[in-house]
């Protein structure tokens, strides 16, 4: 049975939580489902002070269920040879906590979940970068995956085409950090710091990040000793990620892959519904309760308005202050840059 079918809304709204407090904030703001992870390397948001112990996960699931919301546990890094037990334990602990689904990408993790926790729904993480019918069919036929989180590089038309060829639910990002790489295979952070979101769960690990503000107010952002961006006095800043850093090439310096900007696809909700999308995902497990509460409330309003047949919602003004670099984009969904 689809999770979405139980919500009586055109979409299931899947919202981030990096702490139990953020989980409660998301539930209270109207999330249909909350995704979160354990406080170890099984989780692609493995940042200091963030995430859930096993006991906190069980309490979080209980809080969500008492308020009619689901909890999806992200065990979405790639298991390290020789240490697979950590990932296996995470799968078992999530199932014991009563999680409604596991979000995984690694074959070994999916295999363990399918074999040992057959009663727990499996979602394919965006980290698996599955964006073809053939790849998606492999995961559904092999592991019984029920939903695929699509990479943030597809246009709405491509999503519609894909949905016509597959028999599982799809979930797409609609707000927050915009990863423009082939997720799960990006090596930029590894190149600069030796750590990556794919294995250790951290993109731009904070112990490799340094900020320096000059006397004139210019802010320099460094990652692993590389200066990756420079912001003039008063200019909005962004995350210290290489994909949004500035590069010099062929005599020009500028943003090569993507500007410091956040995804906001609120205006595309009708098109995403028509494209057959089941669930909308808000990025930001590293963000605070204030972000979670504001963004979830805004998108829940938009989803409910769509259910009532009201015209498309533009949340750009309302959410601008929460966006990276103070700017928002519809990203690849409207692929005007192609």
């Amino acid at each position, binding site marked *: 049975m689809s999770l979405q079918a139980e919500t009586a809304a055109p979409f299931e709204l899947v919202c981030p939580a*990096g*702490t*139990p*407090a*953020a989980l*409660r*904030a998301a539930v*209270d703001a109207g999330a249909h489902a909350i995704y979160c992870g354990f406080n170890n390397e099984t989780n692609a948001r493995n*940042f*200091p*002070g*963030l995430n859930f112990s096993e006991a906190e996960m069980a*309490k979080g699931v209980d809080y969500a269920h008492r308020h009619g919301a689901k909890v999806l546990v992200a065990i979405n890094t790639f298991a390290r040879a020789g240490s697979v037990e950590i990932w296996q334990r995470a799968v078992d602990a999530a199932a014991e906590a009563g999680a409604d689904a596991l979000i995984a990408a690694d074959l070994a993790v999916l295999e363990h979940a399918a074999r040992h926790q057959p009663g727990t729904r499996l979602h394919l993480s965006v980290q698996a970068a599955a964006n073809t019918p053939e790849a998606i069919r492999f995961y559904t036929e092999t592991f019984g995956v029920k939903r695929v989180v699509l990479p943030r590089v597809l246009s709405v038309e491509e999503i519609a085409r894909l949905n016509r060829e597959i028999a599982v639910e799809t979930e797409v990002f609609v707000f927050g950090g915009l990863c423009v790489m082939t997720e799960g295979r990006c090596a930029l952070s590894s190149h600069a710091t030796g750590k990556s979101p794919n294995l250790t769960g951290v993109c731009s*690990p*904070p*112990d490799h*990040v*340094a*900020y*320096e*503000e000059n*006397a*004139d*107010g210019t*802010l320099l952002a460094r990652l692993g000793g590389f200066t990756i961006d420079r*912001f003039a*006095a*008063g*200019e*909005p*800043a*962004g*995350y210290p990620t290489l994909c949004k850093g500035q590069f010099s090439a062929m005599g020009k310096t500028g943003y090569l892959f993507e500007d410091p900007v956040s995804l906001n696809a609120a205006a595309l909700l009708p098109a995403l519904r028509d494209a057959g999308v089941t669930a909308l995902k808000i990025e930001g497990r*590293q*963000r*605070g*309760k*204030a*972000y979670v*509460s*504001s963004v979830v409330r805004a998108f829940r309003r938009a989803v409910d308005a769509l259910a009532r047949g009201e015209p498309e919602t533009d949340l750009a003004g309302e959410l601008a*202050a*929460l*966006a*990276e*670099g*103070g700017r928002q984009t519809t990203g690849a969904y409207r692929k005007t840059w192609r």
Partner: protein
Amino acid sequence: MTRHRDCGELPPVVALLTKPLPRRPLELILTRLVRQFVERRPELIERLGPTAQVPIAVVPTDLPHAFIVNLDGPRSRIDVVASDQATSAAARIEGPLLILLGLFDGSYDGDAAFFSRDIAIEGATQHVLALRNTLEEADLTPAEFAGLSGNLAEIVNRRTAEALGLARRLLGAPAADIRATPEHGR
């Protein structure tokens, strides 16, 4: 370090009036309160991890005083120093007092405050992040920090929220996005 926006800055007269205040009594009171708080919430020190042994400077840009925070269990302490002497810390977070208070109680999102340059961080970024995330989980209210409970706690929290809301409106700080609600049981 320079500030680039006057978002929520206290009027200069506040710095002028608070400059002569003796720091030692404030230091003793804050240290006592923070030790009682971490004793009540030991799980927060666990969440803080190695950062518990690291001094972090919290520097309100609109006050002449800075706070060096150590959250090392029963040895926790807060040292109050002159702003320009907050150099012994491993990491430093600075911004207007109202913005910093909003980060402590979760009313403001730390990343958004960084994007907008309302706050600045320097030094060991991982410790600032760990502290921020731990405070997010703390659902810190003025009454809880002061060790109050019952009706008195509700009154203190409500009055403080009203006063902060008024100050934010008068001084042009962003509106608070969220307040901890009673149903947020742990």
